[in-house]
């Protein structure tokens, strides 16, 4: 069998940079009634944000194809704006920030 080539110089940083970081999904949801809602919201919103970013990526890929009409492009763009708006609303509702969802885009980014 052909020997696979898998070479990385900093797997941990690469993983942190490109993947959905584990800290954004709590290992356990606290049973404390006052914080259980926030913990669940954090978990659910993190997953919704991941899906939103996948949709955005797919929309940009469709743009690359070059066969979308101006109407399609407008419609896709509006859908992405609306999705972001809804995410912001939900974050406000549950008092969560991008940092809570581990979405900050610092030098070592934490999502995608």
């Amino acid at each position, binding site marked *: *069998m*052909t*020997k*696979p*080539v*898998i*070479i*990385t*110089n*900093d*797997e941990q*940083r*690469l993983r942190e*940079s*490109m993947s959905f970081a584990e800290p954004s999904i709590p290992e356990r949801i606290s049973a404390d009634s006052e914080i259980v809602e926030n913990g669940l919201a954090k978990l659910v919103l993190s997953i919704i944000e991941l899906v939103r*970013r996948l949709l*955005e*990526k797919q*929309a*940009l*890929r469709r*743009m690359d194809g070059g066969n979308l009409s*101006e109407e399609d*492009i*407008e*419609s*896709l*763009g*509006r*859908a*992405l*704006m609306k999705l*972001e*708006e809804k995410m912001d609303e939900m974050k406000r509702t549950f008092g969560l920030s991008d940092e809570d969802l581990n979405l900050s*885009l610092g*030098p*070592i*980014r934490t*999502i*995608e």
Partner: protein
Amino acid sequence: MKSIAIGVHLRREDIEPLADAVPVAGLYLSAIAVADDQSLSDRDLLVRVTSTRAALLDRATFVAIRYGFSFRAGAEAEAKCAPQAARWKALLEEHRHRVEFTLKVAAPGSARPDRHDFKSGADYIRALHDARDATSIPASFREKVESAIVPIAVRHRWVRRDTTSVELAGLIERELLPRLAEAGESLKMTAPDVPFLLSAPWPLEVFAEE
């Protein structure tokens, strides 16, 4: 039963008995049969498809089919593949002894446009598109890649899929995989500060896109 497609191959003997060979427009689709109620997200199925994919690639290069295409009858698969068949056949003949490799490099990222600055959806998505395309990696790292890895490749293409990474996809002769590994090890020593992952071999995917 339904079948999960894996790839499109030039010859039947490239597939059997590792997987089922389904004739499609002069080529052969590799597939594995699963129960109708089997979920495509089942872990065991994913592992089975991945290992079959690797075993098939070890035999001969094929055009990868994105995971998730399932069909019940050969005619259904034929209808889906026929429009691409002539192009795939030419690619498979040209690249039979070549495989793809990919070098994924973490990028510092570019500024994300703020949706509040836009009234038009089209303008917003174009700004997102531009931000993605502005993603770049350090010039010195790119130069090292261009001198160590690109010369081994028959073809190469820098690909931007998001704002967090830039990817070099390349086509390489199978026999040069050990040289690719050496180049990767050398890059590891000379560029420790830019996180990267070099992996190979892969079936035709980036170079099978239109």
